[in-house]
């Protein structure tokens, strides 16, 4: 996630640049959405018409695609994105308890961001780290054998502000 200038005009310039670069790829919509989310951390709904025009699609089609995929988000995430694996292998090693703990520790639910804006909590269904369940991903880092204590120290290490891990 990069720049983070939030002016609508800059967003528009950015998306136009991305479209120009990628529009000739066959099936360009997903690569464009990925690049946009890499850059901004989310897909601003205001940009959907620009993308639609650029790719000669209807707005509804673009919206349909963005909303189909769990990964694409239409609001900015917190400074860190924490994904907790909810799938079977992790369940077998206590991920249900970890889910409860994480929501309590961050004082937010899945798909929400902690009040201090530090953490967005997301569910994920398998990180391919099932040999060391439960698994958690923060950004592009994956952690194995995550219990409540390990989760707390992870969160503490990532926090810029003082967090009260309860």
């Amino acid at each position, binding site marked *: 996630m990069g720049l983070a200038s939030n002016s609508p005009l800059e967003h528009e310039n950015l998306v136009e640049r991305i479209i120009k670069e990628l529009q000739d790829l066959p099936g360009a919509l997903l690569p464009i959405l990925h690049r946009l989310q890499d850059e901004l951390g989310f897909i601003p709904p205001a940009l959907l018409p620009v993308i639609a025009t650029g790719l000669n699609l209807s707005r509804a089609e673009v919206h349909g695609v963005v909303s189909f995929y769990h990964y*694409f988000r239409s609001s900015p995430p917190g400074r860190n994105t924490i994904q907790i694996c909810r799938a079977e292998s992790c369940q077998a090693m206590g991920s249900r308890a970890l889910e409860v703990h994480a929501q309590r520790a961050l004082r937010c639910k899945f798909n929400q961001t902690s009040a201090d804006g530090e953490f967005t909590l997301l569910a994920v269904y398998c990180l391919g780290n099932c*040999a*060391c369940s439960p698994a958690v991903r923060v950004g592009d880092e994956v952690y194995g*054998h995550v219990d409540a204590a390990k989760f707390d120290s992870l969160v503490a290490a990532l926090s810029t502000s003082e967090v009260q891990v309860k």
Partner: protein
Amino acid sequence: MTAALTKIYVPRDTTACSLGADRVAVVIQQHIEKNQLPLEIVRNGSRGLYWLEPMLELETEQGRVAYGPITPDKVDEFMAAACWLRSDQHPLYLGLTEDIDYLKRQQRLTFARVGVIAPTSLEDYCQHGGFAGLRTALAMKPQAIVSCVTDSGLRGRGGAAFPTGIKWQTVLDTASPQKYIVCNADEGDSGTYSDRMIMESDPFSLLEGLIIAALAVGADRGYIYLREEYPLAEEVLNRAIDVAYANGYLGKAIAGSNFSFDLELRLGAGAYICGEETSMLESLEGKRGEVRSKPPLPAISGLFGQPTVVNNVISLATVPIILAQGAEHYQRYGAGRCRGTLPFQLAGNIKYAGLVELAFGYSLRDLLEDFGGGTRSGRPMRAVQVGGPLGAYLPESQWDTALDYEAFIEIDAVLGHGGVVAFDDTVDMSEQARFSMEFCAIESCGKCTPCRIGSVRGVELIDKICAGKAPAQNSILLEDLCYTMANASLCAMGGMTPIPVRSALEHFAEDFEVDAGPASRPSPQA
């Protein structure tokens, strides 16, 4: 004056890194620099002996020796022990890597190079037999390549176990100026990581398989559809693709022939259903991942309406060794209609979790006990889910079943992509059944009603049964619902969700009784 440096191998694989392997590499490098040690770090992939990760290897005159687990908190002590001077003087010394029992008892064909080589070193790849299959294929007619794959008996490793050669034959026989190869790297099944390992630890084997497939059916473009959840695999694959282009293994005039093939990596976006091949094609075309009705088969009308081979990572990565060593050699492994090997993945509550590539025909118990060593928690093992979230939960009475596609179908189970997830006796099987329905509701593409609505009703019914609300009646409704989903869904997402649900109901009925709340069972491990 510089003496030859001894190689010390530090894995770079998602799971090894999830246990601190990157940190370990950094600390070792600091020791090397500070003390001018005669060592050189090589980042290999993982051997897949995950309970030993981070597992370091040291080059010796006798061969590579291993140490593990060397977690970040142990690495200073490990370096202080100066193992490179006398390799066997360390409490975490494991002996020659190749002699580690868990590895020695496997039949590693597809995984022969995994963990051995530096993943994106073309030199390493070629020194370990890489591109031998492609060289053979380049001297063959397309039909001969397809026949070789057909004769090997290879069946799709993504789950449906359809014969790979027959799929290729259809694409070869369908005339078209444009054909595609699509690699299914969506690996969404819980408990599976073999695709990830190939992509992170031996990516050229996948590329070689893709090139051979293209050569066989006459395709000049390919895509790898990789799930977004695998950032390291993405990085390694992109690097491998760049190296292959730079060295004439992709692009025009491959390996000096007049054959061209372009390959691109595309990312999914967190949708389990996009592992289903037609949903994946929609997604590659830039659309919602809604499942297409079949026919037409993708082999006849696939990506952008053109004939398309869709194959799983393991299917494709197995092709090079089949071409290099011959169909006869590959099909000598296995049992019955299941030829060759399957890389099983031990996961969940299991002591020795890891990748076990074995010829078909061993029993599930061999995997769970001889390799897995029982549960990690030390408690009795109670249930095992094989084949991902759409696979059955098997009670101990079924663990002697042979690891064979047909044998599993006979007990209403599936082998799928080879994932094996163990649970101890703290598991509540009604929660597992409920989750199967919940997962289907979350991941349904929404195209057909039995799956989209049925899964939601399934969750509600299981909740009612477990709360003691007209359990007998609701159990009948649940079975009705399972019947409808199994028979009226467009694809296997809705169609197979009843498999884990029914297996839980059938083999673990006591968990669905009212007072069978967690309180009446042993409490889960801390």
